[in-house]
């Protein structure tokens, strides 16, 4: 059974999630990719406020395709998360509790997740058409000049994810593969 999560996600709730849990996320999440992450961290370095409340926030690593007339959003699947590794620890230290992406994360990100209580969710890569139907509202709130890479505030309903790395550092990419290989012996 999938665990229902409503954002904002507190660190206490994030700490309850375990690697391998299937979850359905509802509420507000924010989109950001490489270029937006770079700007967010630059603002923090300059001591300026961020364009949204980072505390207890979930950031989705995605650059959607343009919406057609009458559509909320275009295709919107996850992008590779490791490209955000340079920035995520800084944002987690500011209170970010959730990340949605796909693929491996670096040791520094996992260390920050353990220290502050954050979780890394995986959405299925290459399923952007399917995932877009869970997005009920989308609005650009910052860096419109970045186009697909602008920061969007999304309202999602039952957005399907799996906890890949939990706040204890358990990693489904390691345990899932090991369990499958053990089953084949």
């Amino acid at each position, binding site marked *: 059974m999938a665990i229902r999560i409503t954002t904002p996600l507190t660190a206490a709730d994030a700490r309850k999630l375990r690697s391998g849990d299937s979850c359905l996320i509802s509420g507000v999440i924010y989109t950001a990719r490489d270029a937006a992450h770079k700007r967010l961290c630059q603002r923090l370095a300059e001591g300026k406020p961020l364009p949204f409340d980072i505390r207890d926030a979930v950031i989705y690593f995605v650059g959607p395709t343009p919406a057609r007339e009458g559509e909320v959003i*275009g*295709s919107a699947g996850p992008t*590779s998360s490791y490209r955000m590794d340079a920035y995520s620890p800084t944002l987690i230290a500011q209170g970010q509790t959730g990340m949605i992406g796909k693929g*491996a994360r670096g040791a520094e990100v996992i260390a920050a997740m353990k220290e502050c209580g954050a979780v890394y969710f995986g959405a299925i890569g*290459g399923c*952007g*058409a399917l995932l877009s139907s869970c997005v009920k509202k989308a609005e650009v709130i910052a860096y419109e000049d970045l186009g*697909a890479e602008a920061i969007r505030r999304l309202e999602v309903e039952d957005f399907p994810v799996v906890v890949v790395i939990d706040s204890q550092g358990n990693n489904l990419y390691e345990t*899932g*593969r090991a369990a499958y290989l053990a089953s084949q012996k």
Partner: protein
Amino acid sequence: MREIASEQIAAVIRRLCIQANCILPEDVRARIAACAQEEPWPQAQEILGQITQNYTVARERMQPICQDTGMACVFLEIGQEAHVTGDLTAAVHEGVRQGYRDGYLRKSVVKDPLRRVNTGDNTPAMIYWDIVPGDRLRITVAPKGFGSENMSQIKMLKPSDGEEGVKNFVVKAVEEAGPNPCPPIVVGVGIGGTFDKAALLAKRALLRPLGQPSQDPFYAAMEAELLERVNALGIGPQGFGGRTTALAVAIETAPTHIAGLPVAVNINCHVTRHQTEVL
């Protein structure tokens, strides 16, 4: 001399960009279905089911299968008896510009690799030219996503590394890519030629219909063996474990220098898109 108008070429490329991004080729769908049948790991089967459902939704709505609608790789085989009126290169870029605009595809190209300002229309396309006999023009559009492109590798092996060296390099590249390139993946391998030729061969290998082995029985056997080895890694769909790490391994080769053994591995995600039209 047969004449082909550049405007016609632009119109075809526009259409191919949209179709390639919204309709997955039948060979890829069929291969995913076959792999799902053979997949012993329940979670992996479930993911393959969702991937298939996504293809169906995308085709029904004519919506991009993946939000990374790629860099437009355009392969042109130009018959030497054909004459294109107008500017062929400009027509290719114009077709891409129109296709990415009218198909609501993502504009993912930056003008400069370090200064990184988006060109706003997904141009320029990557154009690969070939002059061939005849009077036809064969156009293939293969949008290439970068989640998988970033996991590609090239190495100049020594002739003494031989067949084992090549195979080990391919398997290592797939293992290092792990969950990042959206497995199940398609593995294009280029062996031989020069440094750049090997990479091009690997890219071309990704255009071959899945399930169609190399015409050379030696390399067909190597493809089968590599697919077995890659799928024994256990990475599985999305990297969550399972058999189906790769859908296919395709090898293309070229003659090379007595001192060299270049090997390139170009990785594609399960959204292995390409559409072709002959004018």
